């Protein structure tokens, strides 16, 4: 009975304040939307990854891999010796169709059948016979998208060549997404297309445990039998840092979102304190009142969260494009065409929104429900209470803040603790804000007392209404500080990468085989190219590198076999403190250099050893002489001197050349000359000036952080909605007061100015207060979260424009949010408002 009455009363309140209801819902919609979007994006890319690896590995239980591929003759022997085994040779690599990167996989159609990787349910429809030397199979969806039908020809590009291929058939399956971007060809064709010579990438097997044990014992030392899952694990581990970072960003948005939801909820409760007091006076129990407020919160957040989850789903469609791009840029070819939206995701988004709103509402509802009914009538009592509470809040804030700082600076490597520290610092600082706002406004009021009445009223009202203005300022501060923090983080990151590129790119120009995937150099240079460079008169010194993947005791890592320039140590990038001796050991003593993420992740340091699976000597131990700064991969990289490499591997090929021109040579002109000279050679190669690579690398960096930027703007959106509703409520609540002012003789313009000045001051205060918090957030993001998720250390650096744009952002957000109520109030009829109680 009472419940129905209370619910009706709440309903009427929101019907009378529709905009506020809309804003409360919108705040929740945006908060929930962002987090679900990231959740969906992460799970979709993981899912796509799982599906495509399922497609690539099929039913295989094990695989045989070598240090540099597997010799084809070994496969033939294996077949002959163990004719009963189910084994299948595989070659895979990235190719381009048009601008799109596809995974090309070469298989032996006859050995393939038991693996069921390509034809899950309709084997008869796949036309294996047509897989001759130019035929390729394409997934049905991809063929449709590219507008290709069977027997059409299309051109396929690899690192070294371009070739016409015929669409021999399409791959159909009950899970079409799994085969997105997958090209299948006969192994011989793929071998020649990807220039693998007589090497296979691996041999897939379906083995029982005993078979596996037997085979293991009979393998030569340069081959390994691995469970099929291990490769999948490695690839998952590669993107882990990236996904954690994305999650960190979304959690930050969530934190800001939760804070704003809390604010919105507090406001709607605060506004009705007197109403609640009346109800308490009539005899309604505080328990029922509490329940009614919570019921209201559940209803509002249910609506908001449902829409939010749907918005998240829409957002995910866009986010996934950005993240797929990054994964393709940095890690491996992944096609995510389908957004993966499960009931679990739906309900976790829902739960998140409702949970946050409930917690937020509980705090303010408890306060409202226990208030003495007489006191609630007196605004001054509320304000007085708040003012008394502020020092208590602030002291709690200091304690929480210090605890957060202690946690952040602790030596733990736990990512979770990093997040907790971040949260504590934000909450602790948030608790300090109302007191600081009060003090600052008091100071300002004193400074302006006796000046124009508009000015002193504008400053005075912030102080007098601190229970509301404090909330609004805190909300704005936290929202703005998170954008400042992210800005500083990206800026520092970019600056570090920029510096690192400058140190790493020592040559004037580089030559490599045009690549299919931007950061990977997968082709090798023809000897004629190397000869042409060696004999070039302009070139003073040449460095060379071969990029390959190497298996170690810790997993598979990208590796660079390097011949550095003479007298050009890359010592600058060695961050372990023994750079000179580390470099010496690298050049002379067969030592290797490992990248920072590898060192961090596996707790390795100079002096440790790493077991690497080599082609010639099988597993061999290498001494680590130093740790290199390296932002190219968060998974970890190895650098090994070419002389060392040659002792353990057969390959003598080179994938990149770096050239230093003679001092008197004009670099730009020399590069142009080389370009024309190389055009005449058989192999198409790309020659890039130092600056070009530098620029392109930064472009990839920027692309990687595109997602972060998008998330940051969404957070600003959430913040804006929060501020808007806070200021709207604040100003509309004072409509009667403003009407009295108008009746006393304040003009429309003056009223507009009064409200704008007030909000401007709140914006400015929030902007200034946001900077220390934002800086602290950036420090934690850089030195704790990113360090622990990617393993990269870097210097923090506050970009010049950041402080300025943060102040502008917070002032204009506040002004914009204050403008509507100001305009509305200055337009409305005075007589009408004077009647409103």
């Amino acid at each position, binding site marked *: 009975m009472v419940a129905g009455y209370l619910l009706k009363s709440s309903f009427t309140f929101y019907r009378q304040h529709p905009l506020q209801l809309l804003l409360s819902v919108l705040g929740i919609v945006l908060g929930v939307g962002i987090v679900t979007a990231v959740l969906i994006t992460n799970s979709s890319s993981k899912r796509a990854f799982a599906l495509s690896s399922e497609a690539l590995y099929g039913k295989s239980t094990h695989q045989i891999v070598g240090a540099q591929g597997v010799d084809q003759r070994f496969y033939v022997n294996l077949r002959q010796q163990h004719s009963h085994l189910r084994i299948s040779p595989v070659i895979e690599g990235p190719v381009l169709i048009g601008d799109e990167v596809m995974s090309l996989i070469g298989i032996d159609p006859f050995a393939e059948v038991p693996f069921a990787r390509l034809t899950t349910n309709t084997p008869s429809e796949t036309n294996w016979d047509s897989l001759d030397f130019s035929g390729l199979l394409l997934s049905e969806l991809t063929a449709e998208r590219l507008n290709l039908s069977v027997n059409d020809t299309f051109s396929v590009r690899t690192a070294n060549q371009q070739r016409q291929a015929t669409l021999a058939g399409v791959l159909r399956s009950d899970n079409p997404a799994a085969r997105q971007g997958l090209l299948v060809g006969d192994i011989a064709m793929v071998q020649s297309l990807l220039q693998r010579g007589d090497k296979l990438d691996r041999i897939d097997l379906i083995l029982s445990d005993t078979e596996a044990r037997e085979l293991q014992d009979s393998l030569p030392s340069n081959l390994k039998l691995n469970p099929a899952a291990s490769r999948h694990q490695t690839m998952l581990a590669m993107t882990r840092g990236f996904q954690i970072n994305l999650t960190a960003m979304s959690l930050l948005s969530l934190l800001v979102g939760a804070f704003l939801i809390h604010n919105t909820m507090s406001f709607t409760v605060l506004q009705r304190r007197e109403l609640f007091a009346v109800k308490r006076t009539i005899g309604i129990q505080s328990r029922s009142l509490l329940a009614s407020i919570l019921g209201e919160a559940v209803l509002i957040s249910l609506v908001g969260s449902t829409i939010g989850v749907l918005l998240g789903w829409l957002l995910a469609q866009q986010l996934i494009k950005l993240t797929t791009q990054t994964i393709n840029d940095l890690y491996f070819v992944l096609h995510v065409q389908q957004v993966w939206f499960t009931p679990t995701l739906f309900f976790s988004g829902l739960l998140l929104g409702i949970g946050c709103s409930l917690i937020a509402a509980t705090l303010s509802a408890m306060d409202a429900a226990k208030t003495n009914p007489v006191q609630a009538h007196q605004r001054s009592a509320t304000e007085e209470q708040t003012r008394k509470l502020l020092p208590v809040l602030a002291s709690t804030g200091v304690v929480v803040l210090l605890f957060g700082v202690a946690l952040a600076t602790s030596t733990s490597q736990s990512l979770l603790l990093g997040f907790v520290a971040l949260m504590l610092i934000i909450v602790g600082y948030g608790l300090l804000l109302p007191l600081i706002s009060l003090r600052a406004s008091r100071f300002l009021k004193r400074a302006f007392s006796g000046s124009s009445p508009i000015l002193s009223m504008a400053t005075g009202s912030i102080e007098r209404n601190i229970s509301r203005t404090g909330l609004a300022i805190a909300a704005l501060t936290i929202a703005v500080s998170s954008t400042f923090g992210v800005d500083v983080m990206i800026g520092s990151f970019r600056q570090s990468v920029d510096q690192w590129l400058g140190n790493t790119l020592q040559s004037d120009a580089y030559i490599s085989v045009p690549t299919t995937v931007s950061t990977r150099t997968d082709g090798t240079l023809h000897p004629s190219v190397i000869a042409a460079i060696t004999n070039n008169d302009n070139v003073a010194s040449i460095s060379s590198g071969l990029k390959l993947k190497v298996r170690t005791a810790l997993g598979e890592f990208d590796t660079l076999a390097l011949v550095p320039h003479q007298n050009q140590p890359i010592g600058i990038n060695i961050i372990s403190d023994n750079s000179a001796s580390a470099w010496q050991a690298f050049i002379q003593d067969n030592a290797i250099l490992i990248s920072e993420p590898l060192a961090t992740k596996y707790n390795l340091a100079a002096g440790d050893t790493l077991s690497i699976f080599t082609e010639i000597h099988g597993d061999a131990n290498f001494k680590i002489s130093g740790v290199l700064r390296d932002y190219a991969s968060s998974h970890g990289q190895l650098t090994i001197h070419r002389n060392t490499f040659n002792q353990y591997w057969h390959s003598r090929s080179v994938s990149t050349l770096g050239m230093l021109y003679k001092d008197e040579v004009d670099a730009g002109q020399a590069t142009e000359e080389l370009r024309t000279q190389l055009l005449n050679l058989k192999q198409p190669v790309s020659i890039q000036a130092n600056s070009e690579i530098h620029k392109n690398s930064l472009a990839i960096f920027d692309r990687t952080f595109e997602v972060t930027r998008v998330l940051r703007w969404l957070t600003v959106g959430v913040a804006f909605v929060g501020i808007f509703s806070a200021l709207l409520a604040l100003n509309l609540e004072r409509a009667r007061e403003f009407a009295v002012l108008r009746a*006393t003789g304040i003009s*429309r313009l003056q009223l507009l100015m009064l409200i704008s000045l007030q909000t401007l001051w709140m914006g400015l205060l929030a902007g200034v207060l946001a900077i220390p918090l934002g800086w602290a957030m950036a420090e934690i993001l850089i030195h704790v979260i990113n360090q622990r998720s990617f393993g990269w250390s870097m210097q923090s650096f506050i970009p010049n424009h950041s402080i300025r744009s943060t102040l502008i952002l917070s002032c204009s957000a506040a002004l914009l949010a204050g403008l509507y109520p100001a305009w509305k109030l200055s337009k409305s009829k005075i007589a009408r408002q004077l009647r409103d109680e």
Partner: protein
Amino acid sequence: MNNTGVNKSSNTIAIAVSGLSHAYNRHTQPRPIIKHLDLTVKCQESVAVVGRSGSGKSTLLNIIGALEPVQSGDVSVLGNTLTGLNDSERTALRRHHIGYIYQSFNLIPTLNVADNITLPLALIGVKTSQRTAALLPLLDAIGLSGRSEDYPDVLSGGEQQRVAIARALIHQPALVLADEPTGNLDAQSGRVILGLLNELVTNQGSSLVIVTHSLEVASQANRTLIMRGGQLDEVDPSPVNGSFAW
């Protein structure tokens, strides 16, 4: 801004209303509240308006105070035809020449007593020192000398009303409009406040229109008018005359 010529001599007209009609829209159906109302108030004259609740007294006061637009008829206040004034001219009229007192919620909660009272002076650009000079005797007169730093919400209802009166009078307006200024006070305090109001208005030579439910209040005015059927009629407010009840 001060483009309104005002003369406070007792034989000129402060308010001239003729043929005023006013209606509120209710469910798109106009509901007339004031019908062809005429009213003349001379300078320095005090007029009490009585009438049943809902008869349109506040509406009339709001129209005269240039807060409610004139729908039809002529309203001239202190020599200014209201229909001819734009918003900023109406604001200027209020600021310089009208003092307004309401039944409740009169004060700006974010300004202290001193600032509330001197607000009209600040608005017309009077210097701080002069404002204080004007404030002190007035504070004394309303008996709140020691309370100038207090904020409205710690004052009692009667004290708040006294502050409101001081604010309505500090800039010595030619016209004071009071809408049930003693409505929620006990009889004793109401009497004190009204005495104060009348005294100050007389001293300043202002005109006063006061809406009230109290016969006692009405009897202190020069004239008493009753709002009935959308029009004003002259009545004798002596308590013996029981011909009207409100």
